């Protein structure tokens, strides 16, 4: 099944949300499972123990190991993703939410291979395709073996996105 299991990298920005209607529509073409992945970049989150954080309990267990403010931030991200996941579930698409520390391309590449992902649905901005930043998008395209749906959104105001 070509679209059976979709990986939806999510970063709380508007461009990520632009992907959602496409994933929902792919249900009609056989999408049964969506994996929402938030990558905890070391440049933003510092060192977080390498694990798949797929529940609030696992994130809460980080208290003491990393700053409480960071843990609260992770919980907020998890809950926001859960809201979106509920829309997928309501449409009959089974959804997993997971936060994983690492670099974007490596983590998306690892996850898509590990979980047999059939399609990666990636939201990007025009800015991501500028001469100096296009390498990151290319790195992701190279890191995944599966097809990749790229949904481009206009440049965002600032970098705060939906946080």
């Amino acid at each position, binding site marked *: 099944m*070509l679209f059976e299991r979709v990986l939806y990298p999510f970063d709380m920005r508007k461009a990520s949300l632009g992907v959602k209607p496409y994933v929902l529509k792919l249900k009609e073409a056989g999408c049964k499972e969506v994996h929402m992945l938030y990558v905890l970049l070391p440049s933003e989150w510092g060192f977080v123990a390498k694990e798949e954080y797929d529940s609030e309990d696992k994130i809460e267990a980080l208290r003491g190991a990393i700053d409480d403010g960071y843990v609260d931030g992770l919980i907020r991200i998890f809950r926001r993703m859960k809201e979106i996941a509920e829309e997928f579930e309501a449409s009959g698409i089974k959804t997993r939410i997971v936060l994983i520390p690492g670099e974007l391309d490596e983590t998306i590449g690892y996850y898509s291979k590990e979980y047999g992902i059939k399609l990666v649905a990636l939201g990007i901005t025009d800015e991501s395709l500028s001469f100096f930043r296009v390498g990151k998008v290319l790195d992701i395209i190279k890191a995944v073996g599966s097809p990749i749906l790229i949904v481009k959104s206009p440049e965002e105001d600032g970098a705060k996105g939906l946080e």
Partner: protein
Amino acid sequence: MPLFEKTLYSTDFSPLAEVALDYVKKLKEAGEKEVVVVHVVDDLSIELPEGADLLNEKELYKILPEVDQEYVTSLIERLEAVKKILEDEGLNVKLYLKYGNIPKQIVEVAKQEKVRLIVMGAHGKGLLTEILLGSVSTDVIRNAECPVLIVKRREE
């Protein structure tokens, strides 16, 4: 217009483009009704105007050297074969055979036809080459106004 109602399928007739065709066919289940099939030629022995329409501008065909005429005829046959495959799936099909810069022409046709999605195969090149010189898929992603589905290998 629904998200996948009108798609553009860019083909270079490679095995990877054939894999991409499977995705084009599958999208019918998600509301796809019309497919614009595009092949861009950039390797004729004479220079033609950028964006020349080799399917409909008959005068252009006549000025081509014989070897190019044969080549273009074979491309038209291949496009017609793709058309038949998609029509057999119940899809409406429109064909384009353009001359010029490949990504530029793909994006131009996508804009002209107001497609909602471009589907194409990706060919791996060195990262540095892609950043500096651009690849067909990178340039299409960069310049297209609609989403792009890049297909990398056959479904296992």
